[in-house]
C-alpha cells in the first residue's frame, strides 16, 4: 500500500477518469523520473525536459481544459479541480518542478477555458498553442511582486513589473528586469499582469515566448525546482494584439491564482507523499542504538515519524478541501471571488509551511542520508522551499488574509 491509498482523501468524489489518470501518471513518473534520478540527477535535457514533454503533450495535461473542437479534452467543469489535484500530487511526488510547471499550464487553462469563463474568441486564439503539435508548451506568469522602482503602480501593495499601453492596434508592453514565476529561459507563453497606462484596472496579457522585443536574460542559479530554468526578462515595446488581453480587473486574477494555488498545493502534497515513502523505508531498515534496534521502534524517532505522517494527513486533506471549494462554486463563492482566492492563498501557504517543516524534520531524522543527494530526499526540501518563495512572502500574504477577513481596506 503506498501513500496514495493510506492517506485519506475524498476518493469517492473523484471521477473514474481522474483515478485512471492518477494511476497512469504514477506509473509514468516512477519509470520516467524516479527510477532514473539517481543516474540523471537534476539534468534538464536528459531527464526533466523529456519528462515534461511526456506529461504535457503526450499524456496531454496541456490539452485538458480546451474544447474538443480545438483538439482539447474539454474537461472544463469546475470539478476538474479534483483532476488537477490528483494529477499534480502524482507529478509532485516524482518532481516538484515538473508539477510546478504543470500547475502554471493548468491554471491558465482553467482561467480561460472553464465553462463559466469561456470566451470563444479568446479560446480560439489560445487553444491551438496548447493543442496543436506534440511539443510541450511551457507557461509562465509575470505577477505583481516586490519591485525596486519607486512609484510603481501596485496590486494589493505589490508593484506591477510590466506596464501596458492600450491602443487601437493592440497593446504595447514595457518592463525591465522582470522576474517571471518560472522558466524564463524556456517558456513558450507568458501571462503577464500589467498596469495599464492611464487606467486603474490592470490587465492580464498573453505574450508568446517568441514575441519581438521580449528578451531573456541568462539562466540564474537557484535553490531548487530544476525543471524551471528561470531568467529575468526585458520587455521592450512588445506588441500584442488586442485579443491578447485575457481579462481586466480583479476577478480574473482571483480565478487564475486560485487554480494556480491549488496546483502548488497539490505539488506540495506530492512532495510530502514522497517524503513519507522515503522515511518509511528508512524507518524499516535503519538500525540505531546498537544491534537489533530498528529506527521506527525507537519511541523518539517513531514519535517524530508519527508527527510527519500527521502533517501529510492534514495537508492532503487541505489540498482536496481546496479542490472541493473550486469544484463547488455555489457553495464556496466560486473561483473569481475574493473569498475563494483568500482561502486558496491561505491553504497554499499552510501546506507549503507544513511541507517545509516536515521535510526539514525528516532530514533531521535521516541525518547525513537526509542531505546527501544520493538519497533523493534533500531535493524535495530545496524544491518546496523554492516553490514557497515563488508563492510569495507569507508576511505579505497575511495582509491579503486581513483584507478579506477583517475588511482592512487601507492595506
Amino acid at each position, binding site marked *: 500500500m503506498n501513500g496514495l491509498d493510506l492517506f485519506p482523501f475524498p476518493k469517492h468524489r473523484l471521477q473514474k477518469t481522474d483515478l485512471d489518470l492518477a494511476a497512469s501518471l504514477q506509473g509514468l513518473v516512477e519509470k520516467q523520473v524516479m527510477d532514473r534520478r539517481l543516474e540523471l540527477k537534476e539534468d534538464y535535457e536528459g531527464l526533466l525536459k523529456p519528462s515534461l514533454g511526456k506529461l504535457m503533450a503526450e499524456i496531454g495535461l496541456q490539452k485538458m481544459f480546451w474544447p474538443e473542437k480545438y483538439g482539447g479534452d474539454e474537461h472544463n467543469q469546475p470539478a476538474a479541480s479534483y483532476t488537477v489535484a490528483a494529477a499534480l500530487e502524482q507529478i509532485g511526488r516524482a518532481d516538484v518542478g515538473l508539477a510546478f510547471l504543470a500547475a502554471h499550464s493548468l491554471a491558465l487553462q482553467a482561467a480561460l477555458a472553464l465553462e463559466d469563463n469561456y470566451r470563444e474568441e479568446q479560446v480560439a486564439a489560445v487553444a491551438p498553442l496548447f493543442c496543436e503539435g506534440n511539443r510541450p508548451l511551457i507557461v509562465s506568469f509575470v505577477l505583481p*511582486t*516586490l*519591485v*525596486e*522602482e*519607486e*512609484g*510603481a503602480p*501596485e496590486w494589493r*501593495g*505589490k*508593484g506591477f513589473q510590466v506596464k501596458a499601453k492600450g491602443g487601437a492596434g493592440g497593446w504595447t508592453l514595457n518592463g525591465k528586469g522582470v*522576474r517571471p*514565476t518560472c522558466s524564463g529561459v524556456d517558456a513558450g507563453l507568458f501571462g503577464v499582469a500589467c498596469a495599464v497606462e492611464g487606467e486603474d484596472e490592470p490587465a492580464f496579457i498573453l505574450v508568446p515566448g517568441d514575441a519581438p522585443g521580449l528578451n531573456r536574460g541568462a539562466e*540564474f*542559479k*537557484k*535553490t*531548487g*525546482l530544476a525543471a524551471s530554468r528561470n531568467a529575468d526578462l526585458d520587455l521592450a515595446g512588445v506588441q500584442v494584439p488586442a485579443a491578447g488581453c485575457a481579462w481586466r480587473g480583479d476577478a480574473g486574477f482571483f480565478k487564475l491564482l486560485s487554480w494556480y494555488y491549488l496546483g502548488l498545493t497539490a505539488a506540495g502534497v506530492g512532495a510530502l507523499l514522497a517524503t513519507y515513502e522515503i522515511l518509511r523505508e528508512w524507518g524499516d531498515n*535503519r*538500525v*540505531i*542504538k*546498537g*544491534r537489533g534496534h530498528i529506527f521506527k521502534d525507537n519511541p*523518539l*524517532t517513531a514519535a*517524530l515519524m508519527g508527527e510527519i505522517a500527521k502533517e501529510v494527513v492534514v495537508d492532503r486533506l487541505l489540498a482536496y478541501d481546496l479542490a472541493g471549494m473550486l469544484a463547488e462554486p455555489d457553495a464556496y463563492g466560486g473561483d473569481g471571488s475574493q473569498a475563494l482566492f483568500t482561502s486558496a492563498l491561505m491553504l497554499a501557504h499552510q501546506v507549503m509551511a507544513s511541507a*517545509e517543516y516536515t521535510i*526539514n524534520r525528516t*532530514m*533531521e*531524522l535521516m*541525518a*547525513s542520508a*537526509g*542531505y*546527501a*543527494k*544520493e538519497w533523493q530526499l*534533500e*531535493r524535495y*526540501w*530545496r524544491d518546496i*522551499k*523554492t516553490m*514557497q*518563495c*515563488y508563492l*510569495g*512572502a*507569507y*508576511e*505579505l500574504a*497575511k*495582509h491579503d488574509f486581513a483584507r478579506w477577513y477583517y475588511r482592512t481596506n487601507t*492595506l
Partner: protein
Amino acid sequence: MRTIDDFTRPLEYISPMDGLLGSIFREWVEKDVMPYRRRFDEDYMDHSLIHPPFKKLLGEYGLQRMIFPEDLGGWGMGRSNFLCVAAYRMFEEIARADSGMAMAFGVVYWPLLFIALEPHENRRLLEEFAPMFCATDEAVFGALCMTEPQGGSDIENVEIVKGNTIQTTAVRDGDEWVINGHKLWPTNTGGLARLMAVVCTTNPGSNDPRDIAVIYVKDDMPGVTQGPAYEKAGMAADRNGDVWYENVRVPLWYRAIGPGDDAKYFGEVMATGNMGIIAWISGTMMNIYERLLDYTSRKRYRGKPLKEDDGVAGLLADFAANIEAIRIVGYQCARMCDRHDLYGPLWDPGLVAKMRAQRYLCMDRFMDVTGKVMNLMDAWGADRDWDVEKHWRDVKMLQMVEGSKQLCQIEVARWFYECETL
C-alpha cells in the same frame, strides 16, 4: 549605518587577541572568499576555488599551527584558556562567508585536541605531527573519523552503546596497531585529510570503554584509501567521503591517550564541536542580516521600502533578536569550554550535555527564522545571488554533525532528568 558589529558580544569574555584575529579574518573573508563563494557549490569535488583561500589562511598565515606548543613551531593556544572564545570569533568571521569553510577550518584542530590539551597533552605525538602542520605554508587538513556505515550516530552515542557497535578494529601486532575498517562522512576527507584520528575498537563487541581507541593514521600510509567527495545539498567546502583502512600499520604510541582515556576525553571533542556549530550558525546569521537589510531597503511594498512595513519589520525584528540570543548563548558556551576552573572539566557529561542542548536549540531557531526570512524575500529568496539560500542549505547540514538532534535530546534528558534507560 548599523552593521553586524552592533550585535551584542559578552565583552568580559573576549580574548586578548580578538581584535587582531578579527581584523585578519574579516579582511581575508572579504578579499579571498566573498568574491568566489557563489561558485563554491559546483566546486565541491575539485576545490579549485575553495582551496586557495585555505592555503593562505592555514598555510601562509599559519593558522594551522595554532594549537601546537610554541617550542614546536606552534602558537601555543592548546594551553590557552581563551582558545574557544578566540575560536568563536574566527568561526563567526569565516561562517559569515561560508559555514562549510568554517567547519573545515574547525575540524583541522579536532583530531589534535586529544593530544594538545591539558591534562592529557601527548608530547611525543605533538612532536611527531608538528612538522606536518608547522613547517609548511601549504594547507594541511586533519579529520576525525567516527561514523561507520551501520548505525550512523551510534558511534557518538557512547553512553548507551558503549562502543560495542564499532566495526573498525585495531589489533595489536608487536609494536604496531593493525587497523581495518570503513568510515563515512568525516569532514576534510574526500582526499583532503593528511592526518586522521580514527575511532576504533581494540575488542569488537565489547562494552568496555577501555576498548575504544583513538589512533592516528596518516593519509600516505599503505592501506589508506580516501574516496571522492559526496555531493550534498550544500556545504561544498566541507568535503566528506569514504575512508577505507586495510591492514594499516601504525606504531603503538600513535594511540591518542590510552585505554579509558580515549573514550573519556571524547567529551572534549563533543563539547567544543557543539560550541563550534553555534559559532557557525551565528556567523552565518550575520551575513543573512546584511543581505536582508540590503534587500528590504531596496525592494518596495505599498510605496515604501519593504523594511518600513510594520508587518515585515516584525519578522526582521525576530531575526535580529535570534541573532542576539544565539550569539550570547554561543559565547557563553565558548567561555564554559575555556574556563574549567569555573565550569568544570571540558569532558564532563554535564558540560557536554549543555553544549549539545544549546547547539540543537540554536539550530532549530536558525532553521525556523531563516526559513521565514527567506520566504520574505519572495522569488529572490531562492536566488543564489542573494546568498541567503546558500546559508540556509549549508547550515542545515550542520544539524547532523556530531549526531542528530534526537541524539542530542537524549543526552540532554539523560543528564538533566537522570534518565537511566534511554
